[in-house]
């Protein structure tokens, strides 16, 4: 998936990230949400919440999902080869809740990358969802007028050879 993977080792004073020693201090402010982190004396104000695989952390107004895995869990996962069992990442999913306005593709149709597939209206604006890559449409799961939630599969592609 092109994820960055880093080895972070806990040391007495802080952490070692990819071989670099960094002194770290984590400061909790009583009831206030979030934490304050100091690395090499430099401060960062972070908001953290639990996520499925680790932590969802906000910094500078942006959210970052960081999954944390210890060595043992990682080794088990490597052995079972359980990388991503949740279906093809090329399926078109609703990136947000909205209302389907129009379907632009039909099953069996071959589409190019960037071809419009479904038009979804949200917050009174129409948004055309496009195909990430070239492919053949397998199934269209929605119809105009239908409300969709974030993450709903809208269109699936036929698997390419193999």
């Amino acid at each position: 998936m092109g994820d960055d993977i880093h080895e972070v080792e806990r040391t007495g004073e802080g952490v070692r990230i990819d071989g670099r020693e960094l002194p770290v201090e984590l400061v909790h402010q009583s009831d206030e949400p979030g934490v304050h982190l100091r690395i090499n004396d430099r401060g960062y104000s972070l908001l953290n919440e639990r996520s499925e695989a680790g932590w969802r952390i906000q910094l500078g107004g942006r959210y970052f999902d960081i999954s944390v895995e210890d060595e043992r869990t990682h080794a088990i996962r490597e052995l079972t080869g359980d990388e991503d069992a949740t279906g093809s990442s090329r399926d078109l999913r609703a990136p947000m809740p909205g209302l389907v306005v129009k379907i632009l593709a039909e099953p069996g149709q071959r589409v190019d990358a960037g071809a419009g597939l479904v038009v979804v209206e949200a917050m009174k604006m129409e948004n055309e969802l496009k195909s990430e890559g070239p492919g053949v449409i397998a199934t269209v799961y929605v119809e105009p007028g239908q409300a969709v939630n974030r993450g709903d599969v809208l269109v699936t592609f036929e698997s390419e050879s193999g």
Partner: protein
Amino acid sequence: MFEKILIANRGEIAVRVIHACRELGLGSVAVYSDVDRQTPHVLLADEAVPLGGASAAESYLNVERLLEAAHRTTAGAVHPGYGFLAENARFAQAVEDAGLVFIGPPASAIEAMGDKTAARERMGAAGVPVIPGSDGPLASIEEALPVAVQVGYPVMLKAAGGGGGKGMRTASNPTELESVFESAVREARQAFGDDRVYLERFLTGPRHIEFQILADALGNTIHLGERECSIQRRHQKLVEESPSPVVDPATRARMGEVAVRAAEAVGYRSAGTVEFLVDEEGFYFLEMNTRVQVEHPVTELIMGIDLVQEQIRIAQGEGILWRPDGTQPAGHAIECRISAEDPLHGFLPSAGRVKGLRIPAGPGVRWDAGIEEGVEVGLHYDPLLAKLIVHARTRDAAIARMRRALGDLRIGGLATTIPFHRAVMEEADFLAGEYSIRYIEEHPGLTRDTVPADWRDALLAAAVLLEEQTRDGHTATADRENGVAKGGLSDWQRAVDPWQRPVPEWTHSPE
């Protein structure tokens, strides 16, 4: 005169109007939908009346309910804010017919400016320059095609019934025009209940510069200088500043005079905004917004005026208190719209419960907000959460102040436009004041995922330390220490950060 005002709106503008009421010693009545029961405007107002429903149509657009609420609370006037019914002439008339004061222009002026094609004609007749385009609404694509040829591509389709970016589409050739016509009509119908669209030549890289107007019932009409609003996405403004980096005093005087003439041509009263598109060849009337604007605070800060209080005073029949002092602005103001949209994922709307809110303060910083800690932000209404506005002596100082204030601002629980604004405040063309309404498409780096190296370290370290803190009991800690002591790698943790977007790319219809 009236002593209590019903605010037919929600969010930050409702809060803004309540503040004005309170400072003027007037009572305030909030109205709210079922999902807004606990939002700041409801809790802040003297009185609050439920409208029921969740959708805008059931609640904030429900004229009957709004008038009932005014009657029940004996409010003597209605402030419409912006959006919802603010530019609906029938609503303004219904308010007046119910014996209440509408805090805004006369219904006739709303109607004159609200019908965009009629407004174009009227402005042309009053000697206000307009963009070449169709003479009236276009009934069909067949009617639009020859007009487009006559006007010259690229062209833009616009809703005759309203502004704000809804129902607008651009086309650079007949094929594109055919493909966007239908959705422009559909969006116009949904947004304004009026599916008429018209066509104008699309200027390729103009600036959007607008003039604040104030007119009273005694016949005084003045302008309060300009606002530069070129940083837009899908015709929704994101950053506004005043004065404009490109308007000198002579240009300000000339454009301001035209803006005043435009307002006078429709018998305007109250606060309003005349919008212009400006390119090398000149300036053109775009439209007049017959209400208070989202970005009104930048004018307030440099002109030392309270526009909402002026609206109320004018509605009470008083003359404009403020006198233009050669209309020269004092210092520089910038506003960033903080919306529930994710700029790093195609400005996708986001929703969630606000937590960890930290509001910037200190010299020259203003925060106009419709959110508070714990407020649930949904997808029913406009995504605007708050406006961060700064004022300083010079443009450079204002930018530095905005950068500082954005650094202090924290909103957890949902994605916001904060990262976009942080990027803009560092971007060279913005710093130089050289930008047009194509700014965002010309600077894709502003919405791209780039992570400073030290952030990455901070995030990884935080994740691992947080993980450690939440582990059960002492055993794990002891094991970990053993592992480290034994020589390192036996107990490292592996942090995987999917910087890549987890959802398919959200791309938008061509404009």
